[in-house]
């Protein structure tokens, strides 16, 4: 069994290595035919604009073979920017191409690429995704066989370099951060990766997928393997099994398959479980226009999205707490609860962190609402400037700062450093909205079981949201916190059966002067000294 587990790990590491290296495998050469294939869409106006760039770009690249994406991209971008600058200098605004340089280079890179991945795409798909999934699954299942009886085994979590900010943790941190930076900001560098997943993309939607398809497929694959790990680790705990199945289902079907298939049939590909303001571009004009153009389905999607915001969130949170979304449905939550589970103990439990969390997450919510307000004003009035603030600049700032850097690079990249819910805890505006409802109008709470707490600290340690659960449990108080995503792990790891997530009557849910029962002599535990004030 030990050998089998080692084999699984080996296969997985090989797959990750091949995947990482494949970024450097394609070489690039561009000619006019490829240029046209990549950029011309049949729209006369835009085709003419792109063709004006062909001379410069082709003279910089034609006849050369670039051995890697970086050199190719650099050449293309230089030619692109030179031409654009000329046009701008001449104030020929209609002829300027407003693509970001890296995006322009990315459009060309795919058709210009050649090399082993183009020739053996199927093999590469197998050696990266296939072998990674197989290796990961073998590792997880072999671990199960070695663990024996049911029950959560958190042994050595704080001894191991992977889960205790050791060298493995920092290595994973570096890889993830680099991955997200390249994925979000350098689309021209990742063509090697998106080529690998193209066969799947053609199969699903009949066209090349690009980096977002790659990311979607990777996301689903990672979640699947890590969900199997969850099933193994928490096998005695039905709440965990159901919850994990649910996030996996919503990710694969709602976030991945349904949108891709919608695209195949010519509809906008929409993730119907995404809710504004997490889905920050829900009200962006291109998004609204696309939906309005898509006929009755588009209208349905628009109305559906609005219903989720206005009715879905408050009603569902009232009955079940924000967990119905954050740890049962959400994609970010889904990744955090599967890939991120090994890192949950790294969240900061201090009062200071809680303070920062409250400022930060509500600031992001305010930012999102503000940006959306401007967006809607622009949409209906046609004015793109309000008080000398440009709506599109603010959208770009949000997209960059919050949508990419915070949610992606920090949100996931920082798992091995700061725990698996960095984004959900400090940044997600939807979590802030759900949390406000949960704090003030909900039936959900974590009940503390009388006087049974022994202050051991397992609950706080394994709370991914950094809630000091023990603080409440040891004074016999229910846990009612806006940030609680209801993952249920505090209850699962409690050795004395002290914590239970439940949806009960609102009355008495918040008990600020709790009674620690079992002590006749003292009826009230007058806990006035406060750590949290």
């Amino acid at each position, binding site marked *: 069994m030990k050998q089998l587990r080692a084999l699984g790990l080996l296969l997985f590491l090989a797959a990750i290595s091949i995947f990482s290296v494949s970024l450097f495998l394609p070489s690039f050469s561009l000619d006019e035919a490829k240029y046209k294939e990549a950029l011309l869409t049949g729209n006369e106006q835009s085709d003419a604009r792109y063709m004006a760039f062909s001379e410069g770009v082709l003279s910089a690249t034609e006849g050369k073979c670039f051995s890697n994406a970086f050199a190719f991209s650099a050449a293309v971008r230089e030619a692109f920017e030179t031409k654009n600058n000329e046009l701008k200098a001449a104030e020929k605004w209609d002829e300027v191409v407003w693509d970001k340089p890296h995006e322009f280079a990315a459009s060309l890179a795919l058709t210009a690429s050649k090399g082993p991945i183009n020739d053996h795409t199927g093999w590469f798909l197998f050696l990266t995704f296939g072998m990674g999934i197989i290796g990961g699954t073998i590792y997880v299942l072999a671990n199960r066989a070695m663990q*024996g*009886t*049911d*029950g959560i085994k*958190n*042994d*050595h*979590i*704080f*001894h*191991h370099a992977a889960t205790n900010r050791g060298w493995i943790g920092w290595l994973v941190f570096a890889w993830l951060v680099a991955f997200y930076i390249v994925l979000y900001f350098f689309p021209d560098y990742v063509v090697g990766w998106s080529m690998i997943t193209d066969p799947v993309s053609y199969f699903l939607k009949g066209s090349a997928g690009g980096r977002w398809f790659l990311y979607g497929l990777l996301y689903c694959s990672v979640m699947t393997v890590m969900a199997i790990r969850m099933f193994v680790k928490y096998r*005695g*705990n*039905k*709440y965990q099994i*159901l919850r994990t199945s649910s996030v996996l289902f919503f990710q694969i079907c709602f976030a991945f398959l349904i949108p891709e298939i919608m695209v195949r049939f010519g509809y906008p590909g929409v993730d119907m479980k995404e809710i504004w303001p997490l889905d920050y571009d829900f009200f962006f004009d291109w998004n609204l226009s696309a939906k309005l153009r898509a006929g009755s389905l588009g209208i349905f999607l628009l109305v559906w999205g609005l219903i989720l915001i206005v009715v879905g969130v408050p009603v569902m949170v009232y009955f079940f707490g924000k967990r119905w979304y954050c740890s049962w449905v959400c994609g970010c939550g889904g990744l955090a609860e599967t890939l991120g589970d090994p890192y949950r103990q790294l969240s900061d439990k*201090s*009062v200071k962190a809680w303070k920062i969390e409250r400022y930060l997450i509500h600031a992001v919510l305010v930012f999102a609402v503000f940006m959306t307000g401007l967006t809607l004003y622009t949409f209906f009035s046609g004015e793109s400037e309000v008080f000398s603030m440009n709506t599109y600049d603010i959208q770009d700032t949000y997209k960059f700062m919050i949508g990419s850097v915070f949610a992606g690079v920090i949100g996931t990249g920082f798992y091995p450093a700061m725990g698996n819910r960095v984004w959900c805890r400090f940044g997600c505006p939807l979590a802030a909205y759900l949390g406000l409802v949960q704090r003030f109008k909900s039936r959900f709470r974590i*009940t503390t*079981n*009388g*006087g*049974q707490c*022994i*202050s*051991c*600290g*397992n609950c*706080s*340690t394994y709370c991914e949201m950094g809630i000091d659960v*023990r*603080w409440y449990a*040891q004074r016999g108080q229910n846990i009612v916190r806006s940030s609680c995503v209801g993952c*249920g792990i505090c*209850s*699962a790891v409690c*050795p*004395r*059966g002290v914590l*239970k*997530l*439940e949806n*009960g*009557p609102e*009355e*008495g849910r918040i008990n600020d002067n709790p009674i*620690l*029962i*079992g*002590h*006749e*002599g*003292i009826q009230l*535990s*007058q*806990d*006035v*000294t406060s*750590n949290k004030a």
Partner: protein
Amino acid sequence: MRTIAIIGNGISGVTAARNIRKKSSDRIVIISVETPHFFSRTALMYIYMGHMKYEHTKPYEDHFWKKNNLELIHDRVETVDFDNKKLLLKNTPELKYDSLVLATGSSPNKFGWPGQDLPGVQGLYSFQDLEKLEENTHGPLVAESKRTVETAVIVGGGLIGVELAEMLLTRHVKVIFLVREDRFWGNVLPKEEGELVARHMVEHHVDLRLNTEMDRIEADENGRACAVITKEGERIPCQLVGLTAGVSPNIKFLKESQLDTQRGIMVNEFLETNIPDVYAIGDCAQFHQAPAGRRPIEQVWYTGRMMGETVARTLTGNRTQYQPGHWFNSAKFFDIEYQTYGVVPARMNDHMADFYWEDPTGKKCIKIVFNKDTHEFIGINTFGIRMRHERFDAWLNQNSTVEHVIEHLKDANFDPEFYASQEEAIVQKFNSELGTSITPKRKSWKRIFGKIAL
């Protein structure tokens, strides 16, 4: 302003300090030689197993103490000068006090076995014991060739013993567990429950030897423990001996004083010792007259906490008697959680009848004890099923009948959501054994959280 000195920063001493602070602005000084800050002793095992670090076991952040003006001294109290009301400390200037609370805890029992003080022999109670255990065993996750302890013998079948066994198994140490009685934790658990736990330990590859007593410990040529010899004369080679046959009050440094002590520090029902302004709470206190149905020394987290609350009241002008409510306790044996409410003795008294149910896996069970004649509910043991403390406390207060408890058992279930329900099977067995025809009532939020009298 008075100075209140508290010796011991465990749950008893710290609870006392916190509760005094709520009511008064007296100077409060907590002295401990164990650790600079309060930590949860019950979590020592999790540090060893790598579930947590020491930092995680501290219930209050380090800034808490200063914020609440609680002075901490990390030092050993060498002597208490009761006549002049001052403490003589090892490295710190003497401390004058007006009131003194002794909350010195316990230390592991040693019953005079030959070899009990050899290197490689230890108990598990304090933070220092944990450090010693780290010294006495190889590190976590080391290669097989670097393991120094192949076999450990644990002596004494109680809670700490099973915890130590679980800890050592995570370091791939073979555990041989000697229990003097015919079942595990025989002075507390009835037969069925003792057997359930024993089965589970064996499932975890613990070599459990019941009815086996240690005679002595042998040393190797370096003077380290190398084998345990049983009363039957069997020699068990080992590299570590864990002494877990209970704990005794940690009062050695007080023995020569005028303080009245027996096994523990003698106190009355107000936790007052024979010396004015000196109190004793927690593990180290021994009652002249134990509260009804309780033992004179109770070394439990919860009772320590309650005594801390009580003495704090007395010290803030409201002389209060120690009155624990209905007995409750909990523990975890490897994967199986245990809770108890009310009284379930290891052997039933004459006026008691009991009902036992076990699920087919043999990993969940409940035992309910009730009055043979009146059917009044007396207590419950539950293994593998979580139950609501508040429900049972209410039923005990209301002198509910066992039938009432069985009928409303769903109200008491505290398992996580979606767990399979056991109540139907329990009620069915109860009906068939007692000839009743109870149908379990559906769980009711009104009964659970409401103020309705039941």
